[in-house]
């Protein structure tokens, strides 16, 4: 009886590790296939390409005008970072510190953009942006990307601010700090780690955000991921290696941001919206 249980437990453990291993091997395969192809000269019926070259990167750079696309991507990301900080941080502070009638309703309004998928509200949002002449412009793309980022920042920061003791602020007040001094010398230093973590997650999300940019961007306001989608969609018009070279550039951009983000935040935070309070 004990023997059977022991065997069962071992088999179970083995099955779990086999699955994790299988998943990671395939994941590495999917990514490596793109990277290897982007450096290959020609790759048809063999394990590896016939030869290796870096020429596809030069070609992809000029073919897809990646310089401009990268510039747009970083302009959008930068503006979204700034905007979500300016709008999100004060709102998170107010939600963390005050209880007022209708707070649940406000929370509901903030949570909806996060649980309703971008495609559902992206189409009405795009038509509103076109109505105001912002559709297809850089401003429109920035506004569309800012939309889910503001609630995202709020939901990460609210628990973070709640754990800062309000008595610290009260003490500063007692010792005569004005609002500005309180903000500058007490609140900002305490909040910086949380704001930084939230903004890094916004950066990672904005670079990878496909749907909203796809629905609102026009020529000249497409970010890297949308450009990549269009080139994969029109595969056959360009060499696959050239598309893969662009994919590697995209991958490098978002992975660099991810590595920076992981220095400050826990990976589960990228998926779960808010840091859960530990018991």
């Amino acid at each position, binding site marked *: 009886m004990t023997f059977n249980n022991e065997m069962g437990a071992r088999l179970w453990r083995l099955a779990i590790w086999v699955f994790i291993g299988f998943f990671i091997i395939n994941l590495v*395969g999917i*990514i490596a296939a793109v990277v290897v192809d982007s450096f290959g000269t020609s790759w048809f019926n063999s394990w590896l390409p016939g030869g290796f070259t870096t020429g596809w990167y030069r070609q992809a750079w000029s073919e897809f005008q990646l310089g401009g696309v990268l510039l747009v991507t970083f302009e959008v990301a930068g503006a979204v970072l700034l905007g979500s900080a300016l*709008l999100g941080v004060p709102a998170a502070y107010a*939600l963390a510190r005050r209880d007022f009638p209708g707070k649940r309703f406000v929370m509901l309004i903030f949570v909806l953009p996060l649980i309703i998928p971008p495609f559902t509200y992206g189409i009405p949002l795009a038509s509103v942006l076109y109505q105001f002449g912002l559709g297809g412009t850089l401003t429109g793309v920035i506004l569309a990307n800012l939309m889910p980022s503001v609630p995202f920042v709020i939901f990460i920061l609210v628990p973070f601010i709640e754990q800062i003791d309000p008595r610290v602020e009260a003490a500063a007040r007692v010792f005569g700090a004005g609002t500005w001094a309180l903000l500058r010398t007490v609140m900002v230093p305490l909040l910086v780690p949380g704001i930084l973590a939230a903004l890094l997650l916004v950066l990672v999300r904005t670079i990878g955000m496909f749907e909203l940019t796809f629905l609102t961007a026009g020529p000249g306001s497409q970010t890297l991921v949308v450009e990549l989608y269009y080139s994969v969609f029109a595969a056959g018009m360009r060499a696959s290696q050239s598309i893969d070279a662009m994919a590697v550039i995209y991958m490098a951009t978002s992975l660099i941001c991810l590595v920076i983000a992981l220095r400050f935040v826990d990976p*589960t935070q990228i*998926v779960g919206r808010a840091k859960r309070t530990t018991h």
Partner: protein
Amino acid sequence: MQNMVLTPPVPERVRLSQRLARRGFDVTTLLLLPALLFVMVLFVYPAIYGLWLSLHPMNGGGWLANYTAFFSDPYTYDTIFTTLKLAIPVTLVNLLISVPIALRVRHMRYQRMLTTILIIPVTLGTVLTAQGMLNYLGPLGWFNRVLMLLGIIHDPVRLVHDFTGVFLSQIVGGFPFCFMLVLSYVTGIDPSLESAAAMLGAGPFARFRHIILPLLGAGLAITFCLAFVQAFAVFPSAVLLGAPSGPTRVIAIAAFHAAYEEYDYSMGSAVAIIMGAVQIIVVMLVMKASSLLYRGPVAGGKG
């Protein structure tokens, strides 16, 4: 006389700002307004405008013309079932794999390394995963090559430009997402509850059935909803990896087709609203089902 002095004088009128502050409205609360206004303008207004737009069909007809058109043509209303047939199994598979792995991994030393690896597909997003899978799972890709080398198959199996490709891409992106959420719920369960059960003689299955599962119920329901909503909105991989005119014509494709290829924003909004409504119905059913399970603290007896 003495009593009169002790009762505080009641002023005739409390100033409005003081009355508001007492209920929680003061300058700090006002910090909320810019963000609230922003979300109102860019989320609530578009949602209402989309609803209004969908009720004013571009090609005339009654105010429900878009909806009757959608539900009278099998080519359009079948997209709901195509999407459900993809999204529900994908979500269930992801959830069912995530639970045992999260339970095994929670006390592991290299947990952070594993979560770091698993966050990569979530970060790279569906477009890049789709392009990678086109190479990797294609008829000449490494996956088919390895299977042929091992003698499991003789001819390459068709994995891309089909239902299978989209299904697999949803697992590659969706499993890490589910796993992270489940892991964060599992680590919230006090391990001493399980130790107590083990000491009283409960085997692994009994511990799971009577302790973990009830405590995890609400978390699993939320994970299911979030993962389902993502799977239901699948667009890039259904176009790039699937057969967008056939077996993987999901509802997002129908919405995109109406709004951006036929330039009928009215119909596009109608499909988007139907899409949202189906999601909300599924989410509500799941939450309702989970509320029938146990609800209570997960942190142990002392509270």
